[in-house]
């Protein structure tokens, strides 16, 4: 069950906006940082 929100980007959504790095394996690490922020944002309401 995936959720959609304007303020969070999955890697797939991100590379659609930034095709210049789509084949760069190491760039996928950006997703980890997006996720780190996501977790904190969730945490702050419980």
């Amino acid at each position, binding site marked *: 069950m995936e959720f959609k929100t*304007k*303020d*969070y980007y999955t890697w797939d959504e991100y590379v659609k906006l*930034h095709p210049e*790095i789509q084949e*760069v*394996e*190491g*760039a996928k*690490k*950006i997703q980890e*940082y*997006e996720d*780190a*922020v*996501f977790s*904190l*944002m969730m945490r702050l309401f419980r």
Partner: protein
Amino acid sequence: MEDMNLLREERAQLFRDIYSGKKPKRVPVQQSPAFEATIQYAIDAGVTPPGKTRREVFWEPDLWFDIVDYINSQIYSDTAIGVGAIRLPILYQSLGARCIIMSESGVMQHPEVHCLEPEEYDAYIADPMTYQIEVLLPRLYTELDTTPGRRAMVMAKAMKANADHMAKIGGMMRQISQKYGYPGMASGRSTAPFDYIADFLRGFSRINTDMRRCPDKLLEACDAIIPMMIRESLGSDPKKLPPNHRTFIPLHMGSFISTKQFERFWYPSMKKVMDGLVAYGHGVDLFVEDDWMRHMEAMNEFTGSIRYQFEKGDPVYVKKLFTEQTPPGSVHIITGFYQSDMLRYNTKEECIDAAKKLFDIVAADGGYVFNFDKGLFSLAEPVASNLKALSEWIRDNAVY
């Protein structure tokens, strides 16, 4: 291990001596290749996994230890060879930077940009930091040009990515220093106020217009950022910094402006920054990019322990100037002046001869740290072999 500790101590002593104006045991050797060159060198040597391009490696910190280890194992240096003044692709990509972009071939580039309009000078001058954060950042970093909540998320993400990668580099460099017996180096970064305004805020071409059209605003802006420039390197508690803390400042605009412009626009605010940076006894390392010979009398007025890395110019003149006119109690050290192109076009003997010739001028009675005129941008043969021979020759022969 005991040998490593001795070597580390010997090297630390070389730098302690030279930065305090004593003649060191020998000419200290420093190497600062661009990270791009270090990566390519490792790729060519087969140190990285087959098929990995320079661009890919730049994105994969897990491969960096081997790369950095490789160059340190091959090339003699008295200080650790690291990732240089690295621009992390993950940082600039996360922020959607317009001002720092990685090329297809894996080189970090700085396209000319500007984010401050001339009519905004007053608002900028009133509180430069706040104006940068609130108004200018989203103009340079497109991912911040969004809703306040998303902007905060992007900023947090970028900060965490930057911090993690810098911690990784820090850990790696500690390992490298331990392995090769390099001395600890403490350093901060700063910028000349005029360069700071010119580089990212107004852009190279617009700053020239400003010097004619709104000179007073420009001067006020330079003055307004002095405290920020000092704070950037010394942090919130300069008294707690180690005594060997040195501020690195790459200088930019001097070679493009006249003596008159330099004296009026570049120098006064920078002098205050320099005075601030040395106020607690710490040193400054300047990288004097291109040719600044016409400004050197003013540049020689900086006080404290100041090292100047020269790209172009007249070493005879500079040595004489530093020897005869350095402010009392101050120590001015020369580094650079050795043309890195030598390594591309000459034999080993010629490279060594060029060093001899240069050292006769700049290294007499100390006051010189060997480094190239600028960071090597390629180690492709014959550069690597020449570099190896030259570095070892300096280590073994440039003894006082």
